[in-house]
């Protein structure tokens, strides 16, 4: 069911955006994996087996992205994910990525929650800081042609409302997806926007550890 045709990694260091040059450039990156869409060209009612099969893909992509960024997992401060479905597929095929993509990155970053509960969409009670990767991994998806771009949202890994970390990175794999392909993306960044200065909740003030604040 899983056939990986291509992988595409992108890493960038932002030194400035016409403001003060950052002491440590902001590092952001994404990985796109191009898969054969096993459901292309037809309506398949039961697509859940693929969600299960994607767990392994997610884990290996998350590691490959972190390797490409060449920094320790502890330095990752925000994340996001996304999917572009080729023209012979449906948007729902992109939605298969929600659980395996989110789970893979959160575990890599030190999430201690229950994967089963996560897969079922159940909430867990938390006290104190229960590991990292607490916040929802925000996402976008669409059906698109080869070389389509996807703006992948980025939000803080432990509290979605941290304003300095609201960002997005443009994902794109030249020439993909073809009609019978899927491109799944994971994205991570090692800090806030390079000249963040619009106030709001700061990462240092996270206190509820509920994934939001």
């Amino acid at each position, binding site marked *: 069911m899983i*056939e*990986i*045709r*291509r*992988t*595409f*990694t*992108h*890493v*960038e*260091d*932002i*030194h*400035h*955006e*016409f403001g003060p040059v950052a002491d440590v*450039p902001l590092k952001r990156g994404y990985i796109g994996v191009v898969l*054969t869409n096993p459901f292309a060209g037809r309506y398949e009612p039961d697509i859940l087996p693929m969600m299960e099969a994607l767990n392994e893909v997610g884990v290996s992509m998350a590691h490959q992205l972190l390797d*490409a960024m060449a920094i320790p997992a502890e330095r990752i401060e925000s994340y996001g994910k996304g999917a572009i479905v080729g023209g012979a597929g449906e948007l729902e095929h992109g939605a298969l990525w929600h659980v395996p993509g989110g789970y893979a990155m959160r575990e890599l970053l030190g999430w201690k929650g229950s994967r089963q509960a996560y897969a079922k969409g159940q909430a867990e009670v938390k006290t104190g800081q229960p590991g990292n990767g607490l916040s929802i991994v925000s996402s976008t998806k669409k059906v698109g042609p080869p*070389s389509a*771009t996807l703006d992948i949202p980025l939000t803080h890994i432990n509290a979605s409302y941290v304003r300095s970390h609201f960002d997005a990175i*443009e994902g*794109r*794999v*030249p020439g993909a997806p073809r009609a019978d392909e899927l491109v799944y993306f994971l994205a991570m960044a090692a800090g806030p926007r390079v000249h963040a200065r619009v106030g709001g909740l700061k990462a240092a003030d996270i206190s509820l550890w509920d994934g939001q604040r």
Partner: protein
Amino acid sequence: MTVKIRKLLVQVDETRIEMGQQVQPATRKAVAMAVIENPFAGRYVENLDPLIAIGEELGELLGHKCVQALGIEPSQAQSYGKAAIVGEMGELEHAAAILHPKLGAPLRKAVEKGAALVPSSKKRGGLGTAIDVPLGHKDAAFVRSHFDAVEARVSDAPRPNEIVVAVAITDSGRPLPRIGGLQVHEIKGEDGLR
């Protein structure tokens, strides 16, 4: 003049399956891009030496970034190429100054040899403009399996006063080469052509 870099980007494209066929080993192309300030934006300057020096600096930096991203020894690099996108307040000659006089030498050092011409392309463009960076075998320009290209593109560059400079290096040719011509094992590597 030292180059003023706003962003550095590195991409690796790995193809494992093409048209249902396993590609073994997978083909891998790396592109490193620098978004730099164009010191001569908006005015005509006769002497472009500062841009030539910037080209030399970027040849080394971007060449190393590609080799590093591929995780290979310099000698394992197989093909290369270079390109530049000039923002609208610059001229094509600015791209030429960066790419042609001095970028090649440090790039060749980064891939150990490099007897062949480094193929190139240039254009004027705006934010998110894509450029196809031509690829050719580093030691013999006529190796047919390695004629290829890879896209370089930065979503928020070049601004009007910027230049995007790209260097591409691979450790492979096209995924399923089968149109004949000069083969890698036939390379003499002396004249840069065969």
